[in-house]
């Protein structure tokens, strides 16, 4: 059985009655996961590698570009600061082998930018901005 919306869209019957419980289950499950990852050494390994990559991109941008003409396909450091990094997203990508030691060696500014655009969730930035705004207001 389904409930029909006037635009032709339907939903399974009772969908909204059970949604709250499904959300609670998901929150509990994610809380258990997120508490444990900080105690894993691999989290800090991934975080360190990412910090090195960011430093490398920063070095490349400021020092190498000052020696040669600026090219449009180089990432701008202020873009990185704007996007901010969600460490959980990067950690999961590392653990799922979408980031490997080899790929880090081959990483250039363009592919890093593509990764940020594809994988980093804008909501995490908005929530960060909201918190930042609130802190400034206090």
């Amino acid at each position, binding site marked *: 059985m*389904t409930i*029909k*919306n006037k*635009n*032709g*869209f*339907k*939903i*399974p019957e009772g*969908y*909204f009655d059970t*949604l*709250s419980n*499904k*959300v*609670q289950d*998901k*929150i509990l499950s*994610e809380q258990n996961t997120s508490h444990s990852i900080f105690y894993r050494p691999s989290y800090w390994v991934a975080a360190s590698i990412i910090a090195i990559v960011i430093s490398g991109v920063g070095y490349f941008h400021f020092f190498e570009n000052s020696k040669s003409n600026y090219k449009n396909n180089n990432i701008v450091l202020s873009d990185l600061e704007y996007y901010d990094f969600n460490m959980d997203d990067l950690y999961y990508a590392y653990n799922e082998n979408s980031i490997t030691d080899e790929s880090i060696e081959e990483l250039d500014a363009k592919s890093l930018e*593509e990764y940020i*655009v*594809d*994988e980093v*969730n*804008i*909501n*995490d930035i*908005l*929530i960060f901005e*909201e*918190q930042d*705004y*609130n802190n400034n*207001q206090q």
Partner: protein
Amino acid sequence: MNNIEQDILQLVKSPLTKEKGFNLLVKTYQERLYWNIRRIVISHDDADDILQNTFVKIWRAIDRFQSNSSLYTWLYRISVNESLQHLKQQKRSIFLREEATQNILLERLESDVYFDGNEIQKKLQEAIIRLPEKQRMVFNLKYYDELKYEEISEILGTSVGALKASYHIAIKKLEDFLTNN
């Protein structure tokens, strides 16, 4: 801010009543957020996933929300961004054009077992899907959710003037599409 928003924000401030306040939030806004997401991603299964993720993000951040904007525009902002992020991931490559996303959504419309609109309803949805992303967002929020331009401006981060222009262009394009098809 209405009374129910005030009740929710009061409850979520305290760790002892946060869960109660959050459950009230879910019950109050689940249908509006669901339909907003569903109109963006078309498929029920995708909308279900995105709605749950949206609420998880809200749970993480709600106790830091301090009424700088109205609660429901903040909730809409998170659900819209979560939906757009989903579409971006579905497109697989940032080099693919917007048409790629539109084609994916048209396939979803055809294959979703939870859509059985008549020919006119299907044609209208097809016309909406074929709008550029920004115009589609504005049209959905204005026409279906009946939000004010000022509220849509908070959600999409676009000026009211630009939103009015986008909405009128969207209406014109829909009329043209439906007339010619």
